[in-house]
């Protein structure tokens, strides 16, 4: 019996990896449809469990204590932090976990390179030993993948950590200096150059420098990017990590890693493009352009304030209200109150819809997740393309903590940095009410022409408090 198991174990392990890959693909597919999305992550999770258990059964695995120690501590820490984090802080957690994955791939690649230095006698220069399986010398192509995997993985690690820091509010500035992109370009070329030189002249010191430069590059690339562009950046690094994992999977001759990594690499790239497109920014301008501050004509006029009571009356007697949630709603955790207010309006026979800009909040779909959390049914939530023509027939558009995505300057002022970005046509509504904390400019630092419009009123205050007052007002009617 034991012999049978011994004999078939390698096949069984390979089969487990195959099954895991299929479960990942199916899981991702299911996650891409709302009805089956919840099941999708469970499928993928089962795949991960199978692959992990199979790996423990691999022949000649050493350092089991170390493996278990690292695995258990990290799993517990990540599990607890993932459970505890507030719904609004999800984007930075995704950035953090993504950076960890990229880092893991980079360290795996670096190990393969160090290993190649140690085993130079066994294999030709420029090749890598297949330590995981047969101890054969793998081709030079493998070395290329190992090097590129370290490069991409390390960028993803340091870049994601910066993105995490920015979203967490630890890094609140964009660090820019003249000639920055030129400098970054030089660093990138030097790093890759060293990486390829490595293949010819294996030397442990070069590996250290190469790893360090790659990390530095991720830092340099991400520091100048503003917080508003962070979703695109996180999505890009998500794709990077996928690629790095796929390449290191080739180095380790592990099919599950190759397939799952590349799946995420391509899916993540497409997701990144869609996000950038929704913001009317090319990937190039996100990475190399800078945004905000200057540009655009000054706006004349003044902002008119409204009391919560009056705003409540205006909405209660409207036929149609469209609610536009933004990051301000997320920060204030106002989604539950908002739904409570909406239900009162619905009971009064007001037609209420939610309009979601593709990049409202800090990530595409961020608002949808929060509204779903509060219990808002899908059929009340509309995408920008579907609802934009309806603003003209809308009595009140209620903007909650959104700014740049409703700024008509994007349509009118070619000088403005956000010119050309598709926006929600709140300015076309008969009346609009903007809930906002203060009089300052938005995330991109651009004056919002909507706030100064004739038919717009400002309701100052934290979103949660403001909506609570609106509810009081509605109940008093």
């Amino acid at each position: 019996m034991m012999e049978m198991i011994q004999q078939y174990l390698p096949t069984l392990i390979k089969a487990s990896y195959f099954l895991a890959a299929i479960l990942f693909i199916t899981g991702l597919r299911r996650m891409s449809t709302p009805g089956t999305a919840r099941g999708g992550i469970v499928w993928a999770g089962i795949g991960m469990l199978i692959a992990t258990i199979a790996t423990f059964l691999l022949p000649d695995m050493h350092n089991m204590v170390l493996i278990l120690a690292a695995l258990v501590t990290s799993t517990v820490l990540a599990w607890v932090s993932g459970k505890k984090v507030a719904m609004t802080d999800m984007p930075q957690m995704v950035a953090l976990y993504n950076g960890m994955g990229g880092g893991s791939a980079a360290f795996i690649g670096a190990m393969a390179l160090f290993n190649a230095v140690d085993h130079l006698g066994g294999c030709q220069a420029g090749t890598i030993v297949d330590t995981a399986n047969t101890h054969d010398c793998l081709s030079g192509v493998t070395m290329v993948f190992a090097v590129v995997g370290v490069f991409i993985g390390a960028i993803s690690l340091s870049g994601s950590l910066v993105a995490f820091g920015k979203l967490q509010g630890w890094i609140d500035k964009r660090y820019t200096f003249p000639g920055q992109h030129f400098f970054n370009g030089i660093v990138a070329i030097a790093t890759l150059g060293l990486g390829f030189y490595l293949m010819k002249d294996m030397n442990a010191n070069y590996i250290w420098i190469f790893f360090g430069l790659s990390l530095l590059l991720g830092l340099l690339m991400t520091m100048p990017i503003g917080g508003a562009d962070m979703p695109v950046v996180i999505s890009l690094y998500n794709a990077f990590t996928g690629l790095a994992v796929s390449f290191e999977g080739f180095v380790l001759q592990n099919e599950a890693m190759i397939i799952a990594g590349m799946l995420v690499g391509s899916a993540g790239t497409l997701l990144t493009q869609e996000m950038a497109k929704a913001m009317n920014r090319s990937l190039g301008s996100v990475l190399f352009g800078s945004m905000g501050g200057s540009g655009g004509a000054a706006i004349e006029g003044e902002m008119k304030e409204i009391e919560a009571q009056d705003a409540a009356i205006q909405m209660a007697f409207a036929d149609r209200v469209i609610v536009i949630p933004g990051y301000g709603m997320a920060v204030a955790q106002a989604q539950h109150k908002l739904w409570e207010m909406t239900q009162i309006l619905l009971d009064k026979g007001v037609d209420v819809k939610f309009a979601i800009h593709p990049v409202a909040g800090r990530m595409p779909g961020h608002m949808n997740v929060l509204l779903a959390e509060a219990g808002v049914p899908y059929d009340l939530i509309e995408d920008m393309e579907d609802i934009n023509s309806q603003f003209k027939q809308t009595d009140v558009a209620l903007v909650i903590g959104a700014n740049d995505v409703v700024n008509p300057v994007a349509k009118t002022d070619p000088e403005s940095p956000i010119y050309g970005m598709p926006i929600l046509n709140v300015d076309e509504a008969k009346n609009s009410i903007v809930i906002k904390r203060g009089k300052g400019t938005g995330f991109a630092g651009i004056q919002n022409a909507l706030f100064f419009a004739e038919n717009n009123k400002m309701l100052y205050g934290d979103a949660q408090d403001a909506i609570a007052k609106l509810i009081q007002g509605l109940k008093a009617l």
Partner: protein
Amino acid sequence: MIDGFIALYIFALAAILGFEIISKVPVILHTPLMSGSNFIHGIVLVGAMIALGHADTTLEKVFGFIAVFLGAGNAAGGYVVTERMLEMFKPRVKKDDKDGEGS
């Protein structure tokens, strides 16, 4: 052993599959999907375990330990966060029923 060309085929097919799956996705699922794909590349954990499992020198062991630690964080954290997001997408009965309200 997977040689260069077989790898190329696998790369290409997996890449096309990824594009296909994402191209039909509603905006509502973008964040959960990014998180879900973030979990899937947590498979790097398996590679990290293999690498640490074959590490000999102290340096390799340190690097391998870090790799497993980071990989496990990616997988576990990615799962929890995605599951929490998708928890909100549980099928709800349209009219104000208590069904599906759960916890």
